[in-house]
């Protein structure tokens, strides 16, 4: 029997040493723990459909150099933070001194602040479930720490651009930690883009500590190139009466994986998770979400839609775990899927674990194709077949796109999706 593949030791050596000592120590410790880490295979339950897309060669182990220029593809008003290959680029950042809000590079933290952060990194994630996030913890070279004091409100969205420049093979490990004080509010947009064409991996971790009454909106746009394997993990811990809203829009790639874990730890906390994924060609995208209803009286609402064309492959795995004490939980999960060709594949799996007896928990999943009668109706009005197909495909996800609360982002996303579907239906 072939031994299970393990992570190559080449991946265990971080390059940049500019972090404060406590974070360097943490990184070293996490790295040691990764020796002989088994890589996911198709027998690994939560990587069953995606392990075959994961291709880590030793030349991808080196850290991509943090030099060059970066720029968002979103021309939108708001505050900006730019990361290049996992390292913050101060000259490309634009935000004023904000009352009660600090936005800092990990590298700029004092030893005391770094020590405090080191104690909290990874605390929002179940590392058993997100094996690949551990690689980020062993390799991150910089990161963004956002701290909101109680009652602090960021008056405009904060755009965080994560760009990788794939001039040569390598990897980048961007990291964000958001510490939202009581009743604070922030809207954060993470945009992942790339340039260059070498084989690279982006391994991201974003964590949100959402304290009592805080209100977070997180938008995540995954728009990297065909040469970028993306493995992202987001962890959220919510206290009493807090709210977390996320909007994920993902375009397929050679490997796209996003794990989103939300723990509702305080009574009355609520989360709303929306996701839109589109794939074409031989692309892949895998969304794994987990919502832990730990405390009573929490609400979760989750809506994901996948659209797969050509020979592409989309995966949705939605887990809801209602703990024994989480009475009066209200959980609603819905996943609808659209197959645009016979060769495309979508795997969807709801996983419900309910240990409390007084809860409302609804889930639904459907897979379908475009409706021929709707198509006939549109073309009978003179609308071209391609345009009609694009309209109907957009219609499948419009409801979610329209909920993206930042207008400029919404419009950009609509444009990108339209363009994507125009490519999809080029042949038609």
């Amino acid at each position: 029997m072939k031994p299970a593949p393990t992570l190559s030791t080449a991946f265990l050596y971080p390059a940049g040493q500019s972090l404060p000592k406590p974070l360097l120590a943490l990184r070293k410790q996490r790295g040691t723990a990764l020796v002989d880490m088994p890589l996911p295979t198709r027998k690994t339950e939560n990587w069953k459909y995606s392990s075959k897309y994961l291709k880590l060669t030793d030349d991808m182990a080196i850290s991509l150099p943090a030099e060059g220029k970066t720029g968002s593809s979103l021309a939108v008003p708001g505050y900006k933070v730019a990361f290049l290959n996992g390292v913050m680029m101060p000259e490309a950042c634009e935000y004023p001194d904000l009352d009660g809000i600090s936005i800092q590079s990990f590298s700029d933290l004092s030893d005391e602040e770094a020590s405090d952060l080191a104690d909290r990194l990874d605390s929002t994630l179940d590392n058993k479930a997100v094996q690949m996030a551990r690689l980020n913890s062993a390799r991150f070279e910089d990161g963004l720490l956002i701290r909101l004091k109680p009652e602090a409100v960021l008056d405009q969205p904060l755009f965080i651009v994560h760009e990788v420049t794939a001039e040569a093979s390598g990897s980048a490990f961007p990291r964000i930690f958001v510490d939202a004080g009581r009743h604070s509010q922030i809207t954060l947009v993470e945009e992942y883009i790339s340039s260059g064409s070498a084989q690279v991996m982006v391994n991201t971790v974003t964590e949100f500590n959402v304290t009592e009454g805080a209100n977070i909106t997180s938008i995540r746009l995954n728009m990297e190139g065909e040469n970028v394997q993306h493995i992202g993990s987001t962890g959220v811990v919510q206290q009493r009466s807090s709210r977390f809203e996320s909007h994920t829009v993902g375009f397929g790639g050679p490997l796209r994986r996003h794990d989103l874990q939300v723990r509702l730890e305080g009574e009355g906390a609520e989360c709303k998770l929306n996701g839109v994924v589109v794939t074409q060609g031989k692309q892949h995208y895998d969304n794994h979400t987990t919502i832990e209803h730990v405390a009573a009286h929490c609400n979760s609402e989750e809506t994901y839609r996948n659209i797969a064309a050509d020979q592409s492959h989309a995966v949705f795995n939605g887990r809801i775990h209602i703990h024994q004490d989480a009475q009066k939980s209200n959980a609603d999960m819905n996943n609808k899927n659209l197959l645009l060709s016979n060769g495309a594949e979508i795997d969807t799996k709801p996983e419900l674990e309910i240990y409390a007896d007084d809860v409302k928990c609804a889930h639904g999943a459907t897979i379908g194709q475009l409706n021929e009668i709707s198509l006939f109706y549109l073309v009978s009005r003179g609308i071209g077949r391609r345009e009609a197909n694009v309209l109907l495909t957009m219609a499948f996800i419009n409801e979610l796109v329209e909920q993206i609360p930042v207008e400029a982002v919404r419009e950009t996303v609509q444009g990108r999706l339209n363009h994507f579907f125009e490519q999809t239906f080029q042949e038609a």
Partner: protein
Amino acid sequence: MLSIKNLHASVEGKEILKGINLEIKAGEVHAIMGPNGSGKSTLSQVLAGNEAFEVTEGEITLNGENLLELETEERAREGIFLAFQYPVEIPGVSNLQFLRTAVNAMRQHKGQDEMNAAEFMKLAKEISKQVDLDPAFLKRGVNEGFSGGEKKRNEIMQALLLQPKLAILDETDSGLDIDALKVVSDGVNALRAEDRAILMVTHYQRLLNHIVPDYVHVLAGGKIIKSGGRELALELEERGYGWLGIKDEETADSSVN
């Protein structure tokens, strides 16, 4: 304008139309009446180019051009318009977007500039008033949550926007109360023009009180078995279809929707 010769068509291997002959000239209004299952809706769908129906024999020309060689969207751009018996609901596509896309597809075909959002909105609001639809409906999904009457008025609104050469109205009166019937009829009458023909397909003659046809044809068993003037419709109203030797299968399933 429209010439149908010996048209045979089938759906799922079953022959529904068995040799239709019909000539319609510009400016004329024709009504096709007949019992359920006689092939009325099939004829409408075949004219519009629904691929679920296979034309096995015969020809259809529009101003001399072979319609059967054209795709549905090309027929529409050449001036064929079908008001659906059951207009389709498409949540996620707004009426405004749908109507503007259709109008601009037509304009592009004619070599005209596309209408911008503001221009189109102005036009759409005017015409929605003409068919008594609240302009707020423009923002809603196509036919989404519309009542039967609103859907039919939306069909007529589309005809008014697209200004077809031949408007085919498939059971446009079904499901309308008397007020809605008036609004729809007024809309259709507004469409009447010297360079346009209208083909109404209907089970009942009540619509013909509001939209007076020049010719009435009776379709039964996939063939036109009798043609006449307006008085033929009145006679059918009075005597039913029985005197023509056919059964009016009121309760029989229509072969298509």
